[in-house]
Protein backbone atom coordinates (compact mmCIF):
# COMPACT_ATOMS: atom_id res chain seq x y z
CA UNK A 1 0.00 0.00 0.00
CA UNK A 2 2.80 2.34 0.96
CA UNK A 3 4.58 1.54 -2.28
CA UNK A 4 1.46 2.36 -4.27
CA UNK A 5 1.15 5.70 -2.42
CA UNK A 6 4.80 6.46 -3.05
CA UNK A 7 4.30 5.74 -6.74
CA UNK A 8 1.14 7.85 -6.94
CA UNK A 9 2.83 10.76 -5.21
CA UNK A 10 5.33 10.93 -8.09
CA UNK A 11 2.57 11.42 -10.66
CA UNK A 12 2.01 14.88 -12.14
CA UNK A 13 0.05 17.28 -9.88
CA UNK A 14 0.43 14.99 -6.89
CA UNK A 15 1.98 16.27 -3.68
CA UNK A 16 3.86 14.07 -1.24
CA UNK A 17 2.75 13.78 2.38
CA UNK A 18 5.74 15.92 3.34
CA UNK A 19 4.69 18.67 0.93
CA UNK A 20 1.17 18.50 2.32
CA UNK A 21 2.55 18.85 5.83
CA UNK A 22 4.45 22.00 4.85
CA UNK A 23 1.29 23.84 3.75
CA UNK A 24 -1.22 22.25 6.11
CA UNK A 25 -1.60 25.31 8.33
CA UNK A 26 -2.09 27.57 5.33
CA UNK A 27 -4.80 25.23 4.05
CA UNK A 28 -6.53 25.00 7.44
CA UNK A 29 -6.57 28.81 7.66
CA UNK A 30 -7.75 29.24 4.06
CA UNK A 31 -4.60 30.91 2.78
CA UNK A 32 -3.73 28.67 -0.17
CA UNK A 33 -4.17 29.82 -3.74
CA UNK A 34 -6.91 28.01 -5.71
CA UNK A 35 -4.32 25.95 -7.61
CA UNK A 36 -2.39 24.98 -4.48
CA UNK A 37 -5.67 24.16 -2.74
CA UNK A 38 -6.70 21.92 -5.63
CA UNK A 39 -3.42 19.99 -5.45
CA UNK A 40 -3.69 19.75 -1.67
CA UNK A 41 -7.22 18.37 -1.80
CA UNK A 42 -6.27 15.94 -4.55
CA UNK A 43 -3.70 14.45 -2.22
CA UNK A 44 -6.05 14.46 0.77
CA UNK A 45 -8.69 12.57 -1.21
CA UNK A 46 -6.20 9.84 -2.03
CA UNK A 47 -4.32 9.61 1.26
CA UNK A 48 -6.24 8.32 4.26
CA UNK A 49 -3.40 9.12 6.67
CA UNK A 50 -3.26 12.77 5.63
CA UNK A 51 -7.05 12.98 5.67
CA UNK A 52 -7.12 11.69 9.24
CA UNK A 53 -4.29 13.98 10.20
CA UNK A 54 -6.04 17.04 8.77
CA UNK A 55 -9.33 16.17 10.48
CA UNK A 56 -7.61 15.82 13.85
CA UNK A 57 -5.53 18.94 13.31
CA UNK A 58 -8.63 20.97 12.55
CA UNK A 59 -10.49 19.55 15.50
CA UNK A 60 -7.72 20.43 17.91
CA UNK A 61 -7.57 23.94 16.42
CA UNK A 62 -11.31 24.37 16.95
CA UNK A 63 -11.04 23.05 20.51
CA UNK A 64 -8.24 25.41 21.38
CA UNK A 65 -10.05 28.39 19.89
CA UNK A 66 -13.32 27.37 21.56
CA UNK A 67 -11.86 26.89 25.01
CA UNK A 68 -9.40 29.78 25.01
CA UNK A 69 -11.17 32.27 22.78
CA UNK A 70 -13.52 35.12 23.50
CA UNK A 71 -16.55 32.89 22.96
CA UNK A 72 -15.61 31.17 26.18
CA UNK A 73 -15.41 34.43 28.08
CA UNK A 74 -17.14 33.87 31.44
CA UNK A 75 -19.23 36.41 33.33
CA UNK A 76 -17.00 38.43 35.67
CA UNK A 77 -16.63 37.38 39.29
CA UNK A 78 -16.95 39.82 42.16
CA UNK A 79 -13.48 41.14 42.75
CA UNK A 80 -12.65 41.22 46.47
CA UNK A 81 -11.51 44.67 47.54
CA UNK A 82 -8.70 43.16 49.60
CA UNK A 83 -7.32 41.63 46.39
CA UNK A 84 -7.25 45.07 44.77
CA UNK A 85 -5.43 46.43 47.83
CA UNK A 86 -3.00 43.51 47.86
CA UNK A 87 -2.08 44.03 44.20
CA UNK A 88 -1.62 47.75 44.73
CA UNK A 89 0.51 47.13 47.83
CA UNK A 90 2.91 44.85 45.94
CA UNK A 91 3.01 47.28 43.04
CA UNK A 92 3.81 50.21 45.36
CA UNK A 93 6.51 48.16 47.05
CA UNK A 94 8.06 47.37 43.67
CA UNK A 95 7.99 51.04 42.72
CA UNK A 96 9.80 52.20 45.85
Amino acid at each position, binding site marked *: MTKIKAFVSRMPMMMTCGEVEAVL*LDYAEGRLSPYARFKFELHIKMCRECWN*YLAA*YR*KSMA*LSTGVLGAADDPA*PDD*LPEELVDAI*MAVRDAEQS
Partner: protein
Amino acid sequence: MGWTPLDGIAERSAVDSIRCRLVSTANAHTRRSVNVGTAAHQDLVRAERAHQEIDHEKSYTVHKARAWLCSRISSTLSNDGTIRDSQDFACDCLRIDSYLGNVGLYRRPSLHSLLDPAMPAEAIPTGDGTYLDDIPSGQSYSGDAALLAALRSNDPGAYRQLIRLQGGRMLATARRIVDYDEARDCVQEAFLQAFRNIDTFQGKSSLATWLHRIVVNAALMRRRKRSRQVEVSLDSLMPVFDDTGCRIEPSYALLGEPDLAERTEVRAALLDAIGRLPHEARQIILLRDVEDLNTDQTADELGITIGAAKVRLHRARAALKRLLEPTFGAQTIAKSGVER
Protein backbone atom coordinates in the same frame (compact mmCIF):
# COMPACT_ATOMS: atom_id res chain seq x y z
CA MET B 1 -11.04 60.13 -7.66
CA GLY B 2 -12.10 56.86 -9.21
CA TRP B 3 -12.83 55.25 -5.89
CA THR B 4 -15.02 52.19 -5.55
CA PRO B 5 -16.18 50.62 -2.31
CA LEU B 6 -13.62 48.21 -0.94
CA ASP B 7 -13.97 44.95 0.85
CA GLY B 8 -13.07 44.72 4.54
CA ILE B 9 -9.41 43.91 4.01
CA ALA B 10 -8.68 46.70 1.58
CA GLU B 11 -10.60 49.11 3.75
CA ARG B 12 -8.58 48.13 6.81
CA SER B 13 -5.46 48.41 4.74
CA ALA B 14 -6.42 51.98 3.80
CA VAL B 15 -6.89 52.90 7.43
CA ASP B 16 -3.63 51.17 8.36
CA SER B 17 -1.95 53.22 5.71
CA ILE B 18 -3.21 56.38 7.37
CA ARG B 19 -1.94 55.19 10.69
CA CYS B 20 1.52 54.44 9.32
CA ARG B 21 1.80 57.87 7.79
CA LEU B 22 0.55 59.57 10.92
CA VAL B 23 2.95 57.61 13.09
CA SER B 24 5.90 58.44 10.90
CA THR B 25 4.92 62.11 10.96
CA ALA B 26 4.36 62.10 14.68
CA ASN B 27 7.62 60.32 15.36
CA ALA B 28 9.66 62.64 13.27
CA HIS B 29 9.48 65.66 15.57
CA THR B 30 11.12 67.57 12.77
CA ARG B 31 9.61 69.62 10.01
CA ARG B 32 8.16 67.36 7.37
CA SER B 33 6.58 67.99 4.03
CA VAL B 34 2.85 68.55 4.21
CA ASN B 35 2.54 65.80 1.64
CA VAL B 36 2.44 63.35 4.51
CA GLY B 37 -0.61 65.01 6.00
CA THR B 38 -2.25 65.43 2.62
CA ALA B 39 -1.78 61.76 1.77
CA ALA B 40 -3.25 60.82 5.14
CA HIS B 41 -6.19 63.06 4.39
CA GLN B 42 -6.75 61.37 1.04
CA ASP B 43 -6.71 57.98 2.72
CA LEU B 44 -9.29 59.16 5.21
CA VAL B 45 -11.51 60.29 2.38
CA ARG B 46 -11.19 56.85 0.80
CA ALA B 47 -11.92 55.09 4.07
CA GLU B 48 -14.90 57.36 4.61
CA ARG B 49 -16.33 56.54 1.21
CA ALA B 50 -15.86 52.83 1.81
CA HIS B 51 -17.62 53.07 5.12
CA GLN B 52 -20.57 54.93 3.67
CA GLU B 53 -21.41 51.64 2.01
CA ILE B 54 -21.18 49.72 5.24
CA ASP B 55 -22.09 51.57 8.35
CA HIS B 56 -23.51 55.05 8.61
CA GLU B 57 -22.33 55.56 12.16
CA LYS B 58 -18.75 54.58 11.39
CA SER B 59 -18.82 56.72 8.31
CA TYR B 60 -19.84 59.70 10.42
CA THR B 61 -17.00 59.03 12.83
CA VAL B 62 -14.45 58.86 10.04
CA HIS B 63 -15.95 62.03 8.63
CA LYS B 64 -15.39 63.80 11.94
CA ALA B 65 -11.81 62.55 12.03
CA ARG B 66 -11.23 63.79 8.50
CA ALA B 67 -12.69 67.19 9.22
CA TRP B 68 -10.53 67.51 12.29
CA LEU B 69 -7.37 66.47 10.47
CA CYS B 70 -8.24 68.85 7.64
CA SER B 71 -8.54 71.82 9.95
CA ARG B 72 -5.38 70.90 11.82
CA ILE B 73 -3.35 70.47 8.64
CA SER B 74 -4.31 73.93 7.48
CA SER B 75 -3.60 75.50 10.86
CA THR B 76 -0.23 73.82 11.31
CA LEU B 77 1.05 74.73 7.87
CA SER B 78 3.84 77.21 7.48
CA ASN B 79 4.15 79.40 4.43
CA ASP B 80 6.83 77.12 3.03
CA GLY B 81 4.47 74.15 3.15
CA THR B 82 6.01 72.35 6.12
CA ILE B 83 4.28 71.41 9.34
CA ARG B 84 4.82 74.21 11.84
CA ASP B 85 4.65 72.18 15.00
CA SER B 86 5.10 68.45 14.59
CA GLN B 87 4.35 67.72 18.23
CA ASP B 88 1.04 69.54 17.99
CA PHE B 89 0.31 67.60 14.82
CA ALA B 90 1.20 64.36 16.62
CA CYS B 91 -1.44 65.12 19.26
CA ASP B 92 -4.05 65.55 16.56
CA CYS B 93 -2.98 62.24 15.06
CA LEU B 94 -3.50 60.58 18.42
CA ARG B 95 -6.98 61.99 18.67
CA ILE B 96 -7.86 60.67 15.21
CA ASP B 97 -6.36 57.34 16.13
CA SER B 98 -8.61 57.31 19.15
CA TYR B 99 -11.69 58.05 17.01
CA LEU B 100 -10.91 55.27 14.57
CA GLY B 101 -9.95 52.81 17.28
CA ASN B 102 -13.05 53.46 19.36
CA VAL B 103 -15.34 52.48 16.53
CA GLY B 104 -13.34 49.32 15.93
CA LEU B 105 -12.15 50.22 12.46
CA TYR B 106 -8.88 48.42 12.98
CA ARG B 107 -6.69 46.69 15.53
CA ARG B 108 -3.93 49.17 15.90
CA PRO B 109 -0.67 49.36 17.75
CA SER B 110 -1.22 52.17 20.19
CA LEU B 111 0.16 55.38 18.85
CA HIS B 112 1.11 56.26 22.40
CA SER B 113 3.52 53.35 22.44
CA LEU B 114 4.98 54.31 19.09
CA LEU B 115 5.50 57.95 19.78
CA ASP B 116 8.67 59.42 21.07
CA PRO B 117 8.67 58.72 24.83
CA ALA B 118 10.05 62.21 25.37
CA MET B 119 6.66 63.60 24.43
CA PRO B 120 5.17 65.14 27.58
CA ALA B 121 2.11 63.42 29.05
CA GLU B 122 0.11 66.63 29.22
CA ALA B 123 0.18 66.78 25.42
CA ILE B 124 -1.64 63.48 25.07
CA PRO B 125 -5.32 63.82 24.17
CA THR B 126 -7.84 61.50 25.73
CA GLY B 127 -10.16 61.35 22.76
CA ASP B 128 -13.11 63.09 24.41
CA GLY B 129 -11.99 66.65 23.84
CA THR B 130 -9.71 66.92 26.85
CA TYR B 131 -6.01 66.42 27.35
CA LEU B 132 -4.50 64.15 29.93
CA ASP B 133 -3.40 67.05 32.02
CA ASP B 134 -7.01 68.27 32.22
CA ILE B 135 -8.09 65.20 34.13
CA PRO B 136 -7.89 65.67 37.90
CA SER B 137 -6.21 62.89 39.85
CA GLY B 138 -8.67 60.20 40.92
CA GLN B 139 -11.02 60.68 37.98
CA SER B 140 -11.78 57.66 35.82
CA TYR B 141 -10.33 57.35 32.34
CA SER B 142 -12.51 56.34 29.44
CA GLY B 143 -11.07 54.25 26.64
CA ASP B 144 -7.88 52.23 26.37
CA ALA B 145 -5.80 55.10 25.01
CA ALA B 146 -6.47 57.42 27.94
CA LEU B 147 -6.09 54.69 30.52
CA LEU B 148 -2.86 53.46 28.96
CA ALA B 149 -1.40 56.93 28.86
CA ALA B 150 -2.27 57.38 32.54
CA LEU B 151 -0.72 54.02 33.42
CA ARG B 152 2.45 55.01 31.64
CA SER B 153 2.54 58.28 33.52
CA ASN B 154 2.46 56.17 36.70
CA ASP B 155 -0.90 57.38 37.99
CA PRO B 156 -1.90 55.08 40.93
CA GLY B 157 -5.57 55.84 40.27
CA ALA B 158 -5.27 54.43 36.79
CA TYR B 159 -3.70 51.21 38.12
CA ARG B 160 -6.53 50.80 40.62
CA GLN B 161 -9.09 51.52 37.90
CA LEU B 162 -7.59 48.88 35.63
CA ILE B 163 -7.69 46.27 38.40
CA ARG B 164 -11.34 47.04 39.21
CA LEU B 165 -12.26 47.13 35.53
CA GLN B 166 -10.66 43.84 34.47
CA GLY B 167 -10.01 41.95 37.71
CA GLY B 168 -13.44 40.31 37.97
CA ARG B 169 -13.30 38.96 34.46
CA MET B 170 -9.74 37.75 34.92
CA LEU B 171 -10.67 36.04 38.18
CA ALA B 172 -13.55 34.23 36.47
CA THR B 173 -11.26 33.14 33.64
CA ALA B 174 -8.56 31.85 36.00
CA ARG B 175 -11.16 30.05 38.13
CA ARG B 176 -12.10 27.94 35.13
CA ILE B 177 -8.52 26.69 34.94
CA VAL B 178 -7.52 26.42 38.62
CA ASP B 179 -9.35 26.59 41.96
CA TYR B 180 -10.48 29.86 43.54
CA ASP B 181 -7.49 30.45 45.82
CA GLU B 182 -5.05 29.77 43.04
CA ALA B 183 -7.10 31.94 40.68
CA ARG B 184 -6.69 34.89 43.06
CA ASP B 185 -2.94 34.36 43.06
CA CYS B 186 -2.96 34.14 39.26
CA VAL B 187 -4.84 37.43 38.95
CA GLN B 188 -2.37 39.15 41.26
CA GLU B 189 0.56 37.66 39.37
CA ALA B 190 -0.94 38.65 36.02
CA PHE B 191 -1.54 42.27 37.03
CA LEU B 192 1.95 42.67 38.46
CA GLN B 193 3.45 41.18 35.31
CA ALA B 194 1.33 43.50 33.17
CA PHE B 195 2.33 46.54 35.22
CA ARG B 196 6.02 45.70 34.82
CA ASN B 197 5.56 45.44 31.07
CA ILE B 198 3.09 48.25 30.48
CA ASP B 199 5.67 50.22 28.48
CA THR B 200 6.16 47.35 26.05
CA PHE B 201 2.44 46.78 25.42
CA GLN B 202 2.08 47.37 21.70
CA GLY B 203 -1.68 47.72 21.52
CA LYS B 204 -2.27 45.09 18.85
CA SER B 205 -5.15 43.87 20.97
CA SER B 206 -7.12 45.68 23.66
CA LEU B 207 -5.82 45.96 27.21
CA ALA B 208 -8.53 43.54 28.31
CA THR B 209 -7.45 40.88 25.81
CA TRP B 210 -3.80 41.35 26.66
CA LEU B 211 -4.53 40.89 30.37
CA HIS B 212 -6.72 37.89 29.55
CA ARG B 213 -3.80 36.19 27.81
CA ILE B 214 -1.44 36.89 30.71
CA VAL B 215 -3.83 35.47 33.29
CA VAL B 216 -4.58 32.39 31.16
CA ASN B 217 -0.85 31.75 30.85
CA ALA B 218 -0.32 32.22 34.60
CA ALA B 219 -3.18 29.83 35.38
CA LEU B 220 -1.92 27.22 32.93
CA MET B 221 1.53 27.34 34.51
CA ARG B 222 0.04 26.97 37.97
CA ARG B 223 -2.08 24.07 36.78
CA ARG B 224 0.95 22.34 35.27
CA LYS B 225 2.91 22.80 38.49
CA ARG B 226 0.06 21.47 40.61
CA SER B 227 -0.43 18.35 38.52
CA ARG B 228 3.36 17.86 38.35
CA GLN B 229 3.29 17.57 34.61
CA VAL B 230 6.48 18.09 32.72
CA GLU B 231 7.07 20.18 29.64
CA VAL B 232 7.13 18.10 26.48
CA SER B 233 9.63 18.24 23.65
CA LEU B 234 8.00 19.40 20.41
CA ASP B 235 10.29 17.24 18.27
CA SER B 236 8.86 14.10 19.83
CA LEU B 237 5.34 15.15 18.82
CA MET B 238 5.95 15.99 15.18
CA PRO B 239 4.41 13.85 12.40
CA VAL B 240 6.36 10.83 11.23
CA PHE B 241 7.08 9.82 7.62
CA ASP B 242 8.44 6.57 6.27
CA ASP B 243 11.38 6.12 3.90
CA THR B 244 9.23 6.85 0.85
CA GLY B 245 7.94 10.11 2.33
CA CYS B 246 4.50 8.74 3.20
CA ARG B 247 2.87 9.82 6.44
CA ILE B 248 2.61 7.25 9.21
CA GLU B 249 -0.59 8.10 11.04
CA PRO B 250 -2.93 5.99 13.17
CA SER B 251 -6.22 5.27 11.46
CA TYR B 252 -8.24 7.35 13.86
CA ALA B 253 -8.85 11.00 14.43
CA LEU B 254 -10.31 13.20 17.12
CA LEU B 255 -13.98 12.79 17.93
CA GLY B 256 -16.15 15.01 15.81
CA GLU B 257 -18.81 16.06 18.26
CA PRO B 258 -19.69 19.70 17.76
CA ASP B 259 -20.05 20.48 21.48
CA LEU B 260 -16.76 18.91 22.45
CA ALA B 261 -15.41 22.13 23.96
CA GLU B 262 -18.36 22.24 26.35
CA ARG B 263 -17.44 18.98 28.05
CA THR B 264 -15.57 19.39 31.31
CA GLU B 265 -13.10 16.57 30.75
CA VAL B 266 -12.34 17.86 27.28
CA ARG B 267 -11.61 21.32 28.60
CA ALA B 268 -9.41 19.85 31.32
CA ALA B 269 -7.44 17.72 28.86
CA LEU B 270 -6.97 20.64 26.49
CA LEU B 271 -5.78 22.96 29.26
CA ASP B 272 -3.38 20.30 30.49
CA ALA B 273 -2.08 19.77 26.97
CA ILE B 274 -1.51 23.47 26.35
CA GLY B 275 0.13 23.79 29.74
CA ARG B 276 2.62 21.07 28.81
CA LEU B 277 3.76 22.83 25.66
CA PRO B 278 7.10 24.63 25.75
CA HIS B 279 6.91 28.38 26.38
CA GLU B 280 7.31 29.44 22.74
CA ALA B 281 4.61 27.07 21.50
CA ARG B 282 2.21 28.01 24.29
CA GLN B 283 2.83 31.69 23.70
CA ILE B 284 1.97 31.52 20.00
CA ILE B 285 -1.19 29.47 20.68
CA LEU B 286 -2.32 32.07 23.20
CA LEU B 287 -1.59 34.95 20.83
CA ARG B 288 -3.65 33.31 18.11
CA ASP B 289 -6.49 31.77 20.08
CA VAL B 290 -6.85 34.22 22.98
CA GLU B 291 -5.84 37.50 21.39
CA ASP B 292 -7.05 36.48 17.94
CA LEU B 293 -4.04 38.05 16.23
CA ASN B 294 -3.38 37.20 12.60
CA THR B 295 -0.07 35.81 11.37
CA ASP B 296 1.46 39.20 10.58
CA GLN B 297 0.51 40.62 13.97
CA THR B 298 1.75 37.51 15.75
CA ALA B 299 5.10 37.70 13.97
CA ASP B 300 5.37 41.37 14.85
CA GLU B 301 4.49 40.74 18.49
CA LEU B 302 7.12 38.01 18.79
CA GLY B 303 9.74 39.89 16.79
CA ILE B 304 10.16 37.08 14.25
CA THR B 305 9.51 36.76 10.52
CA ILE B 306 6.10 35.76 9.20
CA GLY B 307 7.58 32.51 7.89
CA ALA B 308 9.04 31.68 11.29
CA ALA B 309 5.72 32.48 12.95
CA LYS B 310 3.92 30.10 10.60
CA VAL B 311 6.39 27.31 11.28
CA ARG B 312 6.20 27.86 15.03
CA LEU B 313 2.40 27.90 15.01
CA HIS B 314 2.20 24.78 12.88
CA ARG B 315 4.57 22.89 15.18
CA ALA B 316 2.56 24.03 18.19
CA ARG B 317 -0.74 22.94 16.60
CA ALA B 318 0.73 19.61 15.51
CA ALA B 319 2.05 18.98 19.01
CA LEU B 320 -1.28 19.91 20.57
CA LYS B 321 -3.09 17.53 18.27
CA ARG B 322 -0.72 14.73 19.22
CA LEU B 323 -1.09 15.44 22.94
CA LEU B 324 -4.88 15.32 22.67
CA GLU B 325 -5.03 12.04 20.79
CA PRO B 326 -4.66 9.69 23.76
CA THR B 327 -7.70 11.31 25.37
CA PHE B 328 -10.03 11.63 22.42
CA GLY B 329 -8.55 9.68 19.60
CA ALA B 330 -9.82 6.12 19.76
CA GLN B 331 -12.48 6.40 17.12
CA THR B 332 -12.27 5.88 13.44
CA ILE B 333 -13.86 8.56 11.30
CA ALA B 334 -15.43 7.44 8.07
CA LYS B 335 -13.76 9.03 5.08
CA SER B 336 -16.43 11.07 3.43
CA GLY B 337 -14.46 13.66 1.54
CA VAL B 338 -12.61 16.87 2.24
CA GLU B 339 -14.21 19.27 4.66
CA ARG B 340 -14.96 22.63 3.21
